[in-house]
């Protein structure tokens, strides 16, 4: 079952006492705990893991880690799983992606036959004629070739994820030797440390090292474990660094959630990701059996897998030498070691499913099934880029190095230079000390500027100079490409020839080349490809690498699931204290902004008629409510409303409209004076927050000498409108301490009294529905009692609840406009019919100059009452009013309903001023395309324009 598993290795991660069963393309396999998907399959002799994106070439293990471009597989309903790093779990159903009908026999390989015609950007140059074929056929075929796994969009893990906040003094990205050393020294200096490692265990390259490396690793691990100041996160990736050191960490293998996003505000960030091995470009370099030195070292030492039988090794560094030693110890025959430093080269590899022959630069051909390259490194500077650094290329060491970092970001380890393990550890330690010193100073500063926190202990820490001894830069040949062309981007099937062609076509900046060829745009986002792409461009342009630059690395460092980013579902709705009652009593809900409300309980027409004939109750709690206190409230009202407020008497209520500084109608409502220095303001439901913030802005910014205190009470008071000719009869049975008679409590008044035994209820007499009606604002804790008492006490009067839909019918019959529905983002006060309300002779009011300008204009649309001539037709809201048979737009229907009271359709509409006169006939185009006529009414109100019903 495991023909390629070799005897036990000192650093192996697998637990040979365990068996983990899984399937690969439907066939049963086993591995051990500690295996990756790829190592278990490789141990079982599997050599082909995927097909390439464009040409569907067979692909095998290449880097045997997270970045391996050939090891994306489907696991159950999860696409694009990195088999090179994902640990094996019992029962995994693993399958190959991007193959049809199967991995072994894939029809997509037909693309290889025409590959010479599919050069970079080929699709831009063809498929143009005939045009209809592009839309109907070519495009569909292209979309069929999209790579990647499959989405199972009927299953979801949305909401199963979690998030966490953290505030470490020092956050270290990378748990290799330098990162671990940095963590230890930072913790010793008194910093709280978070040490984050992408792999499931600490150690970095020490893990696959020789025995002395393993000993160092064991010591480091136990020191880290013993340090109380260090929190270790393994199988976790620092995926982004954002402004002010806001750091994102994607924590996998969390016990309670599939993944967890940790958001950390770090004092200092230490970037210690090590180095990523760079592929070598030559003909056939993607043939299964061509591997990076690191891949064979990991396979043999971590998972005890023999990666091949007969190996040719091309090396330009000690990494290749180490690989040779590992291969020999694993029983692999070393056919030849080619030293690139002395000019040896590989020009081509033959073989389809596996390497067969290796053609060398000196003309010889060797038989082998494994080609190992160790030709250089890429510094994964992503996090440094995100911190604003533009790393600089050093031709001597043949890689990029950090350049200029902000104070709160430091780098250590291989990304900054080369050295022995001891040198790496020393650099890491010094970096940790520096990071801690800077972080502790930042922590001190934050505590100092935080008004309510306790004062920091001790004096401000001194600035510590950066006197670290930099790591050396060991000379390394610039080993990018052989004399042949090969793949630069394995994920995208982009060869060096494609890049050369793009450069010759004018795409000769690295960004343009990337966009034209798609190089580095695949899942690893250039971790393996960027530097090789730059080298090919430098070659094409015959300039130095340093003059080419690189594309910018953006977050995330490695892909992160949408579920993890979303976290738990926090999409709350607001519910009034009566919402449970509504739902228990058959309410059909409506989501209105933040609120869920009853749209209706039964037939809304009947509910509306009950209000006209008897008495109805509606829960209007979402109405914004602001409690205003202080001697200067009248000044504030005068400022924010377009009308006058100075003379409002105690016990009286007034309607007010608001406009913005641009003169556009923004909100409206009634405000009542409860006592000398005490007012209650109501706003629209959606405007409650904005009005509050606006009042605060005035009171804090421009009128800070005014004495007004604003308290939002929207949820604290449950609002119940009791409407209908019998509403007074009902309330008289329940209200105490208030004379409800018409003379004592006239229209547009407010009183405070007891309702159903509940004290301090605010009662105002107003009428959105056009009927005699009272609005009760009841302390929410008692709201259900009041509501149920009203219904029970009024049963003989016909008291029944009504919903939002009935209210809409009623208010439209009465012709009350709704801000945002009957007005829009350009509607000024004259449009809404506020001419009688607006007072232009004030010293100041919000938007005053625009108000004045608006009333000088004659071209603004006008809101009018409108009735279709055919009373049975209800034009849909938003239908357009047009000029006769033409398509010229002259207005639109903003509200429409069938009126149960009038037995006909009724509307509000915004029309061109030339159509605004009462009696004007207009044409309305319905959604179905037919046109009807309608007549402009004298009033907005279709029912009782004089208001006799509400003044009884």
């Amino acid at each position, binding site marked *: 079952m495991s023909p390629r598993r070799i005897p036990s290795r000192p650093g192996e991660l697998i637990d040979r006492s365990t068996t983990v069963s899984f399937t690969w393309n439907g066939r049963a396999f086993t591995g051990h705990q500690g295996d990756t998907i790829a190592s278990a399959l490789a141990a079982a002799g599997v050599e082909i893991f995927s097909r390439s994106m464009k040409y569907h070439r067979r692909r095998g293990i290449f880097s045997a880690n997270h970045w391996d471009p050939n090891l994306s597989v489907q696991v159950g309903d999860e696409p694009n799983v990195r088999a090179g790093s994902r640990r094996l779990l019992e029962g995994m159903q693993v399958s190959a992606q991007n193959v049809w009908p199967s991995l072994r026999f894939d029809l997509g390989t037909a693309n290889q036959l025409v590959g010479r015609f599919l050069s970079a950007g080929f699709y831009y140059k063809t498929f143009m004629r005939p045009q209809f074929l592009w839309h109907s056929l070519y495009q569909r075929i292209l979309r069929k070739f999209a790579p990647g796994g499959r989405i199972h969009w009927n299953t979801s893990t949305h909401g199963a994820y979690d998030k966490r906040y953290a505030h470490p003094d020092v956050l270290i990205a990378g748990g290799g030797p330098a990162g671990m050393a940095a963590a230890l020294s930072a913790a010793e200096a008194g910093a709280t440390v978070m040490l984050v490692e992408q792999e499931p265990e600490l150690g970095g390259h020490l893990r696959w090292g020789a025995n002395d490396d393993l000993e160092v690793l064991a010591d480091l691990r136990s020191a880290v474990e013993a340090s109380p100041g260090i929190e270790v996160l393994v199988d976790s990736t620092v995926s982004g660094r*954002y*402004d*002010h050191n*806001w750091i994102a960490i994607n924590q996998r293998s969390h016990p309670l959630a599939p993944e967890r996003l940790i*958001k950390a*505000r770090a004092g200092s960030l230490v970037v210690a990701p090590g180095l990523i091995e760079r592929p070598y470009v030559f003909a056939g370099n993607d043939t299964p059996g061509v591997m990076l030195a690191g891949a064979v070292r990991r396979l043999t030492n971590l998972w005890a897998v023999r990666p091949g039988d007969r190996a040719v090794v091309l090396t330009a560094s000690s990494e290749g030498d180490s690989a040779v030693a590992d291969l020999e110890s694993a029983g692999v025959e070393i056919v030849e070691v080619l030293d690139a430093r002395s000019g040896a080269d590989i020009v081509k590899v033959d073989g389809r499913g596996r390497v067969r022959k290796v053609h060398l630069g000196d003309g010889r051909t060797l038989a082998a099934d494994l080609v190992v390259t160790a030709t250089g490194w890429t510094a994964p500077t992503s996090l440094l880029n995100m911190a604003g650094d533009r790393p600089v290329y050093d031709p001597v060491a043949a890689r990029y190095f950090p350049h200029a970092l902000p104070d709160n970001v430091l780098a250590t380890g291989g990304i900054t230079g080369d050295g022995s393990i001891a040198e790496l550890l020393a650099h890491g330690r010094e970096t940790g000390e520096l990071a801690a010193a800077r972080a502790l100073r930042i922590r001190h500063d*934050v505590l100092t*500027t*935080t*008004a*309510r*926190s306790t004062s920091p202990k001790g004096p401000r820490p001194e600035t510590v100079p950066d006197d670290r001894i930099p790591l050396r830069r060991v000379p390394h040949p610039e080993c990018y490409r052989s004399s042949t062309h090969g793949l630069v981007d394995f994920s995208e099937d982009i060869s060096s020839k494609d890049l050369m062609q793009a450069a010759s076509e004018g795409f000769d900046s690295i960004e343009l080349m990337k966009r034209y060829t798609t190089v580095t745009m695949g899942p690893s986002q250039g971790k393996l490809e960027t530097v090789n792409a730059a080298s090919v461009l430098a070659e094409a342009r015959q300039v130095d690498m340093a003059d080419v630059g690189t594309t910018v690395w953006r977050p995330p460092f490695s892909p992160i699931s949408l579920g993890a980013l979303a976290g738990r579902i926090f999409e709350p709705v607001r519910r009034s204290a009566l919402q449970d009652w509504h739902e228990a009593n058959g309410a059909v809900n409506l989501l209105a902004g933040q609120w869920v409300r009853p749209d209706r309980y039964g037939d809304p027409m009947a509910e509306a008629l009950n209000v006209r004939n008897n008495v109805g109750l509606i829960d209007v709690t979402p109405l914004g409510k602001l409690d205003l206190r202080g001697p200067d409230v009248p000044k504030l009202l005068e400022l924010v409303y377009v009308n006058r407020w100075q003379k409002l008497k105690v016990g009286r209520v007034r309607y007010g409209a608001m406009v913005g*500084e*641009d003169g556009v109608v923004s909100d409206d409502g009634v405000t009542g004076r409860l006592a000398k220095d005490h007012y209650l303001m109501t706003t629209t439901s959606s405007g409650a927050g904005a009005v509050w*913030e606006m009042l*605060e*802005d005035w009171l*804090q*910014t*421009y009128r*800070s000498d005014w004495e007004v205190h604003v308290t939002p009470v929207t949820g604290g008071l449950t609002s119940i409108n009791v409407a209908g000719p019998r509403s007074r009869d009902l309330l008289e049975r329940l209200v105490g301490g208030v004379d409800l008679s018409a003379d004592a409590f006239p229209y547009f008044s407010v009183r405070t009294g007891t309702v159903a035994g509940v004290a301090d209820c605010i009662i105002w007499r107003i009428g959105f529905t056009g009927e005699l009606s009272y609005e009760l604002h009841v302390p929410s804790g008692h709201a259900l009692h009041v509501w149920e008492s009203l219904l029970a006490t009024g049963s003989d009067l016909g008291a029944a609840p009504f919903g939002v839909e009935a209210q809409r019918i009623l208010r439209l019959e009465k012709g009350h406009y709704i801000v945002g529905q009957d007005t829009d983002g350009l509607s000024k006060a004259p449009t809404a019919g506020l001419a009688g309300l607006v007072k232009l002779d*004030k*010293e*100041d*009011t919000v*938007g*005053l*100059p*625009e108000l004045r*300008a608006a009333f000088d204009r004659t071209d603004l649309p006008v809101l009018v009452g409108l009735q279709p001539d055919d009373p049975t037709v209800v034009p849909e809201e938003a239908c357009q009013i047009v000029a006769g048979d033409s398509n010229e737009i002259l207005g639109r229907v903003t509200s429409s309903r069938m009126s149960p009271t009038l037995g006909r359709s009724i509307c509000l509409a915004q029309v061109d001023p030339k159509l605004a006169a009462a009696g004007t006939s207009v044409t309305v185009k319905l959604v179905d395309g037919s046109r009807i006529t309608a007549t402009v009414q004298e009033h907005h109100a279709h029912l009782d324009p004089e208001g006799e019903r509400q003044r009884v």
Partner: protein
Amino acid sequence: MILVPCPNCGPRNSSDLRNTGEVVPRPDAATASLSEWRSYLYLRDNPAGWVTETWYCRSGCRTYFTIERNTATNEVRGLERT
């Protein structure tokens, strides 16, 4: 997520606050000409550099205050309660 120094609450995530934009002095509404008023309404310096702007501590103490922020770097300095 930048940190915004609220004078009461200390440094807070910007998502706890609302940015209301650069400070523009409001003309006297009674006497301002329409063109002065519309400059106040619409024209902004919009510099790529230091700007004085207003924040509202929406999820905290509900104070409006001004700070200086560099729009090229998001560096923040100074604070003043308005």
